[in-house]
């Protein structure tokens, strides 16, 4: 299969189908509605099911039910809708059910705007719902990367029995780019012998559950979750280093903002500023290593986000006071321009190059 020109939201949907996901439960919300419409048409073609739920709350609980029955399942939404899903996501974590959740982020708080944003970084990486948990979060920057990450997302969900987030923004959802759906060998995954599908032929009753009334029991369960998170931290960190080898300064950006930042970095290099970029692809687990490797040698970092400053906190933790960490952000659906970022790089470099 060669390259095809597709819209971001549709790429997300088709990539999920290629990753073996046949079941989708969701609720329409801008700017990801094309994803819902695509799934409605596409899933019956592969013998799957698309069901429009009465709300985001119902949708995530349908996902919980389908996941408990052992199938690959996903839902998608945008920021206000993802807030509504938080209860169900916490239950998915508690009951250790695999699922993939797409958030095509828009400006907030409240109903906010329908323009692109990265304002749900905290929600995705710091819990979001109640309880003491983490969820793997992946942030693609190109449509091709969506295709590649989607298979990983479903495999990670199944391997670790956890929900997984794919975080995009309105820009990524709406842009068109050529993509290629390359067929990948299926990952070796443990059997879903925990699924509640009826006991016929598989021994005694099983239970899908997140309630553990005995504190000792719940602490054991939470310790088990933490062990799982340690393994995910060991194995599933993803990032891209761009021109960091000789860099005096490093820009940190993820998702679509990283694409704008790349152009600003090229311009800065033309002006003689040696600047590179660390692009976290997994937002949780956050890639700390590229910071450990650069913080001795670079002069400063600049985090650029479409938020008032969220990922910058993780950057500061990773840099750990070794060097200054600057921040530049736009919010509310405003997108930082190449010129804005260039100006910030120049400011960080201490002059008017």
């Amino acid at each position: 299969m060669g390259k095809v020109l597709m819209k971001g939201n549709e790429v997300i949907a088709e990539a999920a189908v290629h990753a073996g996901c046949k079941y989708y439960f969701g609720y329409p919300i801008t700017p990801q509605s094309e994803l819902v419409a695509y799934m409605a048409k596409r899933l019956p073609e592969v013998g799957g099911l698309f069901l429009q739920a009465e709300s985001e709350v119902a949708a995530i609980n349908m996902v919980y039910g389908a996941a408990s029955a052992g199938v690959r399942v996903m839902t998608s939404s945008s920021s206000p809708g993802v807030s509504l899903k938080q209860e169900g996501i916490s239950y998915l974590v508690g009951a250790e059910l695999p699922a993939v959740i797409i958030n095509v982020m828009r400006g907030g708080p409240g109903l906010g705007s329908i323009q692109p944003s990265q304002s749900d970084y905290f929600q995705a990486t710091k819990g979001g719902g109640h309880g003491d948990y983490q969820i793997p979060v992946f942030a693609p920057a190109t449509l091709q990367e969506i295709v590649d990450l989607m298979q990983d997302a479903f495999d990670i969900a199944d391997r670790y029995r956890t929900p997984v987030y794919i975080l995009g923004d309105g820009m990524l959802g709406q842009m068109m780019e050529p993509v290629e759906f390359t067929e990948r060998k299926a990952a070796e995954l443990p059997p879903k012998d925990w699924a509640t599908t009826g006991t016929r032929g598989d021994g005694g009753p099983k239970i899908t559950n997140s309630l553990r009334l005995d504190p000792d029991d719940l602490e054991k369960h939470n310790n088990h979750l933490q062990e799982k998170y340690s393994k995910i931290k060991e194995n599933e960190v993803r990032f891209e280093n761009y021109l960091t080898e000789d860099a005096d300064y490093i820009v940190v950006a993820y998702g679509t903002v990283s694409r704008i930042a790349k152009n600003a970095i090229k311009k800065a290099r033309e002006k003689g500023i040696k600047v590179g970029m660390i692009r976290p692809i997994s937002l949780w687990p956050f890639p700390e290593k590229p910071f450990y490797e650069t913080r001795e040698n670079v002069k400063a970092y600049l985090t650029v986000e479409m938020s008032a400053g969220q990922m910058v906190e993780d950057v500061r933790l990773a840099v750990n006071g070794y060097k200054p960490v600057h921040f530049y952000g736009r919010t509310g659906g405003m997108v930082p321009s190449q010129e804005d970022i260039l100006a910030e790089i120049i400011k960080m470099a201490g002059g008017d190059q």
Partner: protein
Amino acid sequence: MMELVFERTNGLTEKPTHYCPGCTHGIIHRLVGEVLEEMDIIEDTVGVASVGCSVLAYDYFNCDMTQAAHGRAPAVATGIKRVLPKDRIVFTYQGDGDLASIGMAEIVHAAARGENITVIFVNNAIYGMTGGQMAPTSLVGQKTATSPFGRDIALQGSPIRVSELLATLDGASYIERVSTHDVASIIKAKKAIRKAFETQKNGLGFSMVEVLSTCPTNWGIDPKESLDWVKEKMIPEYPLGVYKDVKGGK
């Protein structure tokens, strides 16, 4: 020589329930268990427990069980039913706080879609697990922890009659309200539960049995008086009977 007339059903596990003495949840559990056993569908069934007193139902039914968030059991059941092979049976077991308050959207839409699931709706006019607060089904004038002066229509509105409400939806195939206040009612309740599961087995769509139940602890009366309270106070407000029976032409 003796022969067996009545024994504990294999549709229930051996685990003793946590329900208060005289609480009729236990009767309703048993009826569901007996129906699963008699229809020989224990192994084909996935039950969905809700939040409230029946939250631990997953320990009591002898089939695969999934525990759902408060009110969301019909959505969870939808997810399960829609992805499993057609011969699998899925039921929810929900109380009145779970189903008629926080979960009203999920139950209405599951019924409207004609989800081929069975809902066992236990109505005892109060929140039990949290300590006796007013439910959407609490009677007018009923004193609870959160209606200490009695449920007042001007302040708290009127009780919701769920069976009547859902019967208006085309997707609902079988809806009956039954009671557990005496042995004859219990035998009728079991027939209704059987009919609801048969409705699902025959692929006819959404079925629900609303079972009037007791809460001696939070009503503050003894188990026997509680049965009388169901008969004298609840049934006039919640009349028993079949509200929808598509196959039976109703």
